[in-house]
């Protein structure tokens, strides 16, 4: 029984406004209303109305959107276009020339800010700068996909995108078998202030990784503490998705927390937190020594190795470079160093790795635009990536970004690769091989 709904309320802006679509159209008795209607656009281009182009490039930070000279090098590098999104910086530029208002268009929300286009762009059209400011303008105009809006509302209200109680951020700690010092309750100097992050604190699979991290820290005798319920979302995704005010509020809060507790360094679970604290918080008055957990552990590889007494069973592992650890921050080695330290682990690379690494689709707010994006693309980016991991013969897809475990696990299922590919956070692999 397939159901069809007769919806009267339209809350999302899901269609590209640059296309004229008739409300209904019937051709030779066949109803071709809706998305198939694009054929009704006049074939001739009758105008190049640059009003919207100029409106966009007048936004500070978005100037370079007008610099494209259509070399198209971005296109094969763009993960969204690869996944059938009919998308990419060059296409956005062309649509702008044809009158599209990016602020009122689906194109505004498909970019994951993965930076692959910027990597190859000879004109340095910088989507990483363009997208956040353009989105911020759209958010002010009220043009936001419903999914993302809900995330903003949740973060604004509860400090996490899940809309869960802020108090329950520390709930996983109470159930953990590891020793974890919660600094607000047990203050005092620590070596490491571990910024746990939303997914590690609230998401089922994230909590698995959080526990693994705590156990590994315990085994290494790391002197660490967490902020517990005082921690909030790092804000990077909110900034990239167009809510700079929300980002500032979160950054101010976290910076204040970081300053309250004496520590040598901040170690983060996620690349987005890493990027925010390393590159964005300084402008907000927060200068901290920050390391991604893979960097922190890779620095202690000599102490770590003797603890890795278990075997990984000669399984083939491939590693997905997170955009915000790799391309954005240049760290490609630390995660690989850790994987190579695991006994009986066969590390293989995917075709698109390191600088050319493909994107999981979760960055730049993509994590909360999954349904929106999926509707515009022939496959999810995470699905495209999982297929590649399977193609190179991997048994395990290793990740080190908290967004990715759930994204890729879903993609494993939706690409019918259940049982063929396991998705594990690197910290889980280390934890598994620590013996007991």
């Amino acid at each position, binding site marked *: *029984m*397939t*159901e*069809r*709904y*007769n*919806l*009267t*309320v*339209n*809350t*999302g802006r899901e269609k590209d406004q640059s296309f004229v679509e008739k409300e209904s159209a019937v051709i030779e008795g066949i109803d071709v209303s809706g998305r198939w209607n694009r054929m009704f656009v006049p074939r001739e281009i009758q105008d190049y109305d640059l009003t919207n182009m100029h409106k966009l490039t007048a936004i500070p930070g978005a100037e370079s959107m007008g610099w494209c000279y259509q070399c198209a090098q971005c296109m094969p590098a763009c993960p969204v276009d690869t996944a059938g999104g009919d998308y990419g910086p060059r296409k956005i530029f062309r649509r702008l020339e044809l009158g599209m208002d990016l602020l009122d268009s689906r194109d505004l929300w498909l970019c994951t800010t993965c930076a692959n286009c910027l990597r190859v762009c000879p004109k340095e059209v910088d989507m990483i700068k363009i997208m956040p400011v353009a989105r911020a303008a759209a958010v002010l105009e009220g043009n936001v996909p*419903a*999914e993302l809006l*809900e995330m903003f509302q949740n973060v604004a209200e509860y400090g996490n995108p899940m809309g869960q109680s802020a108090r329950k951020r520390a709930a996983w700690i109470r159930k953990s078998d590891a020793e974890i010092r919660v600094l607000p309750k047990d203050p005092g100097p620590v070596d490491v202030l571990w910024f746990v992050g939303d997914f590690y604190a609230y998401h*089922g699979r994230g909590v698995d990784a959080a526990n693994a991290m705590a156990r590994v820290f315990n085994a290494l005798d790391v002197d660490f503490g967490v902020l517990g319920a005082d921690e909030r979302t790092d804000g990077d995704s909110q900034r990239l998705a167009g809510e700079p005010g929300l980002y500032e509020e979160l950054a101010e809060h976290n910076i204040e927390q970081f300053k309250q507790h004496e520590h040598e360094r901040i170690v983060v679970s996620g690349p987005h937190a890493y990027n925010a604290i390393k590159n964005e918080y300084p402008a907000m008055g927060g200068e901290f020594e920050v390391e991604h957990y893979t960097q922190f552990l890779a620095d202690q590889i000599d102490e770590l190795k003797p603890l890795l007494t278990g075997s990984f069973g000669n399984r083939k592992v491939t590693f997905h470079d997170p955009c915000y650890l790799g391309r954005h921050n240049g760290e490609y080695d630390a995660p690989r160093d850790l994987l190579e330290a695991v006994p009986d682990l066969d590390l293989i690379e995917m075709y698109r790795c390191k600088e050319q690494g493909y994107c999981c689709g979760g960055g730049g707010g993509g994590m909360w635009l*999954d*349904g*929106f994006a*999926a*509707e515009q693309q022939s496959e999810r980016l995470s699905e495209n990536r999982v297929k590649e991991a399977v193609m190179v013969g991997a048994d395990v897809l290793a990740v080190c970004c908290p967004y990715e475990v759930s994204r890729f696990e879903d993609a494993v*299922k939706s690409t019918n690769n259940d049982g063929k590919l396991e998705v594990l956070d690197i910290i889980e692999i280390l934890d598994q091989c620590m013996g007991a």
Partner: protein
Amino acid sequence: MSQDVLVVAEHGQGKFDDITFEMLGAGKALAAQTGGACVVALIGGSDLASQLGAADKVVTVDGEGLENFNPESHSAALAAIVESTSPRVVMIGYTSMGMDLASALSVKADMALAASCLEVQAGDTVTAVSQLYGGKLNVKTDLGAGPCVVSMLAGSSPADAGKGDGAPATETVAAPATDGKVRFVRLIEPEAGDVDITAQDILVAIGRGIGTKDDIEVAEELAEELDAAIAASRPIVDSGWLPKNRQVGKSGVKVTPKVYIALGISGAPEHIEGMKGAATIIAINTDKNAPIFNVAHYGMVEDLFDVCEELTEELQDR
């Protein structure tokens, strides 16, 4: 003040709503505690009085402008009945119509009020238990010895107790004049939906926990496997994700399927009102404290997506 309990009947389109009989049953029990009579206030539709056999007395007001519910004229009519009967407790439904009457009466007649009540007791004082905070807490209040108003949650007592044969004594009170500031224009029936969820054996109902519109697909796949229809709680419909005819609860429809699978529905009283008549209720929610587990027969504290996907696959394999 008498010791009578005045039950405000609710009706529309020529018949009583269930809540009328539920309150009549509860009102009779309460009248037994006060030692007074259980009187029904019937505003408009006095021809329906014959169905109120269980009442001790029926007081009717009829007149122009009372054929259809009108907050202003019905409030005035109720005030006239209250003045003429001087009851100790006025019972009004915690419904769309009742909401217009109860609070206004409480202010105008200077009577204490308890809303969203599950039960009412009378001794020296009247006490009421209100279901509040989205069903997370019951609040017992003391309304004092004087006259009071209670607005009753639908389904808080059985309707059968308020049904009875016989012809109660009927009294008529003249319809008071009003300013005519509220004017009834017309009734608008909901557009006939594609599926009548009140007539389904199995319903897969989704609530706020579904997260996004696109995730409804997961529930739809399960529904397809089960040959069930999709229903929803109010927030889903308010968001425009599903049409109004899918809404279960206070402002939606009341459903009585064989199996009701509640996905990500916390169980606000307004929703429970519409689905607690289901023969089997299975609730899946990540919050183990969700009130839905109080009415559900079976529960799972799990992520609804995981359960849906796994269940759908298992069913496909069968």
